């Protein structure tokens, strides 16, 4: 049986940090570290979590943690794993927490290299769908239509023109030992995936959606609820990749209307009915592909 709230490590490894109230990214980091335990070396590239966790002398990680270069999360994980192994230390987990920009844009090459070498590391991407730390610039994981400071919504262009990169399948295409997607609205599922990943040898990747109240334009208490909604309206998929196979973890019986999800956020408020129809169409095409290619066992509950 996987870890539950009752059996979860009671120690806090990410505490007193200066993240905005209701930060989804800090929730993902906190829960992942509680699952992995104190014998964890965390690597944080430039991004929200390093900015809020290491304001000397306010140091908020109680396990070993280090800031890496923006592009070098996976390379530093490789080095840490190799260095500790060379010293004969085996009871540890090297984990990286990079944002969407640090994973899909800037750190992609290093991550790809680490997967290629199959280094024994765990890479967690907390995805808040833009460069939130530097003031909400578009990343390649920003979804279609989202307003950011570099994709403003005006008369001619209504927010981001490009769809969200499919990071999960890009990583899986490397034939990685384990890749998964997760969501802070489904923490039980996330804990199970982190625990599972920690027991697999080789490179592991988890992509977790972590809403950002500041960047998404939602009240701070909505973080977890809106994260559930993105899954229920079909715009985010909970899945795993293992042994060369894709597996779907959850399929909402009937999708809720994405318009309800989108209109709650100020970054999507400018969208026209036509834009929302574009989003619904691309969602349906994606699910057509998923239903064809992903295995799904309805008996298995989240």
């Amino acid at each position, binding site marked *: 049986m996987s870890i539950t709230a009752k059996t*979860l490590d009671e120690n806090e490894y990410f505490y007193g*940090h*200066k993240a905005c109230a*209701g930060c989804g990214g800090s929730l993902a980091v*906190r829960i992942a570290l509680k699952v992995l335990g104190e014998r964890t070396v965390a690597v944080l590239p430039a991004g929200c979590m390093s900015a809020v966790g290491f304001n000397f002398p*306010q140091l908020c*990680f109680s396990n070993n943690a280090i800031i890496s270069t923006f592009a070098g999360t996976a390379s530093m994980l490789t080095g840490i794993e190799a260095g500790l192994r060379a010293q004969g230390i085996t009871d540890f987990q090297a984990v990286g927490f990079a944002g969407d920009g640090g994973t899909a844009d800037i750190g992609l090459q290093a991550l790809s290299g680490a997967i290629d070498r199959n280094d024994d590391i765990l890479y967690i991407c907390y995805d808040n769908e833009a460069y939130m730390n530097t003031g909400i610039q578009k990343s390649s994981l920003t979804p279609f239509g989202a307003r950011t400071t570099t994709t403003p919504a005006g008369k001619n262009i209504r927010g981001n023109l490009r769809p969200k990169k499919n990071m999960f399948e890009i990583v899986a295409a490397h034939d990685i030992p384990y890749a998964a997607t997760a969501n802070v609205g489904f923490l039980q599922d996330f804990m199970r995936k982190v625990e599972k990943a920690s027991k697999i040898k080789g490179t592991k990747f988890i992509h977790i959606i972590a809403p950002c*109240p500041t960047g998404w334009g939602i009240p701070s*208490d909505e973080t*977890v609820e809106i994260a559930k909604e993105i899954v229920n309206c079909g715009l985010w998929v909970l899945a795993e990749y293992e042994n060369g196979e894709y597996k779907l973890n959850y399929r909402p019986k009937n999708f809720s209307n994405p318009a309800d999800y989108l209109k709650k956020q100020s970054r999507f408020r400018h969208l026209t009915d036509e834009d929302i129809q574009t989003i619904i169409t691309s969602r349906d095409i994606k699910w057509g592909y998923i239903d064809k290619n992903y295995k799904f066992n309805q008996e298995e509950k989240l």
Partner: protein
Amino acid sequence: MKPYLREKVPKTLSEIPEYTVFEAGYLVSKNAGWRNVRPTVDKAKCVGCLKCYLCCPDGVIAKQDGKIAIDYDFCKGCGICAKTCKLGAIEMEAEI
């Protein structure tokens, strides 16, 4: 165990480490001042399901005697706990 508040705040040049290495979990300031609203727990309604404990981004909710206790030094008052509690045992009250 969790990172905790220290009395000593490194200030002078000689107290600042030469390399970028320092003790883990070293806190010198609280986050309580960020809060406009504070979560209050109705112990009679709380059944200790721990949903709020799991969902707190700051980890300020701890288990206590089968129920929960909140560390107000580090709670930022985001309100996720109150929203998560299906029993209505947590309410957000204005800070005075």
